[in-house]
């Protein structure tokens, strides 16, 4: 009896392994990481074209930064953020981030859609370009 079951068990295990690793090997060549557009009037018009922090930091930590901003601005009333290089910003998603990156669909959404992240921030926080339509 045990011998009969081994075949089924191995088949099930194989299906499981294939299924679990599916996202990692399927479509590896089919979709490339997205190209993000920085073509917005505000960025074009800004002098130094620098974000709050440098690109590597933002790419890795922008969500943690935003969460820290959220708690500090709302719960502690501390609204000014001083970046590593000393520039100050208001801790506001719409007011600081989206002010420059006003092309949410060509910037934020491209990476988010690629990795399947669905941040709920924009359920409340307004993207002016979308609202003015």
């Amino acid at each position, binding site marked *: 009896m045990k011998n009969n079951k081994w075949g089924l068990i191995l088949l099930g295990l194989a299906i499981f392994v294939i299924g679990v690793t599916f996202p990692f090997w399927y479509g590896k060549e089919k979709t490339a990481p997205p190209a993000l557009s920085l073509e917005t009037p505000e960025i074009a018009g800004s002098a130094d074209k620098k974000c709050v922090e440098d690109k590597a930091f933002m790419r890795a930590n922008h969500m943690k930064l935003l969460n820290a901003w959220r708690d*500090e601005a709302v719960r502690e009333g501390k609204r000014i953020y001083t970046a590593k290089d000393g520039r100050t910003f208001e801790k506001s998603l719409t007011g600081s981030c989206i002010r420059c990156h006003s092309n949410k669909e060509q910037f934020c959404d491209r990476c988010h859609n690629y990795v399947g992240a669905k941040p709920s921030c924009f359920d409340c926080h307004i993207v002016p370009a979308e609202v003015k339509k």
Partner: protein
Amino acid sequence: MTPNRRDFLKIAGASALTIMTPAIFVPAWAKNSIVMPPGQGLAPQKALAAKRWAMAVDLTKCTANCADCIVACHAIHNVPEFGNPKDEVKWIWTEPFASVFPGESPAYSGEKLQKMRPPVFCNHCENPPCVRVCPTKATFRRSDGIVMMDYHRCIGCRLCMAACPYGARSMNYRDPRPFTAKINPDFPTRTKGVVEKCNFCEERLAKGTLPACVEACRQKALTFGDADDPRSDIRRLLETRFSLRRRAHLGTGPQIYYLL
């Protein structure tokens, strides 16, 4: 198989717990792993500050059929208009005198008093029952007296709505965005499932401007200021005029003073 299955379940349970344990501590680690550059926490230079924000509503100046304060507040804060009293969301509105001050409207008071419709909104109490009952501290009292809402944390349990003795809070029973005619891009909307209320325009105070209702009132019936500062306008008003507060005997310490 029976004894083996038991042991298997025990080992599986223990393994699951072991794997889960780091996840419980990760949030604490995550906070330290991000390097926060120095210098945050400064309030903008022009922000208005106070020890105890309060508002005085001069009922002799407040005219019936006027909605200046309501229109200004709801427009700036993207308060939705659902069009039915069931789902209604309102931060400031008017009520008959007898409803605002239950038990305080004697039968012989004149027509003016009986027809009066004082504006009502969150009283930003000193001893707020809503803050006491909130299970997640989504509503909390700032040191300057403003009772705040953290819409990120609210789970929508509505215990605060039950606790508020003034009916000042509204729940978003539906998605508010489709029902907001003109969205002000400088202030977020809310989502369905969270409770909201007047916030004393704390975002305007941070920029050095007075609350929207105070500025919009053409009769200048609303006075906003620091009740703790003996030299403020509101303090002088409270010292010279008789004022009523709503249901003050409940011990909530409301900070909206109605001048008669």
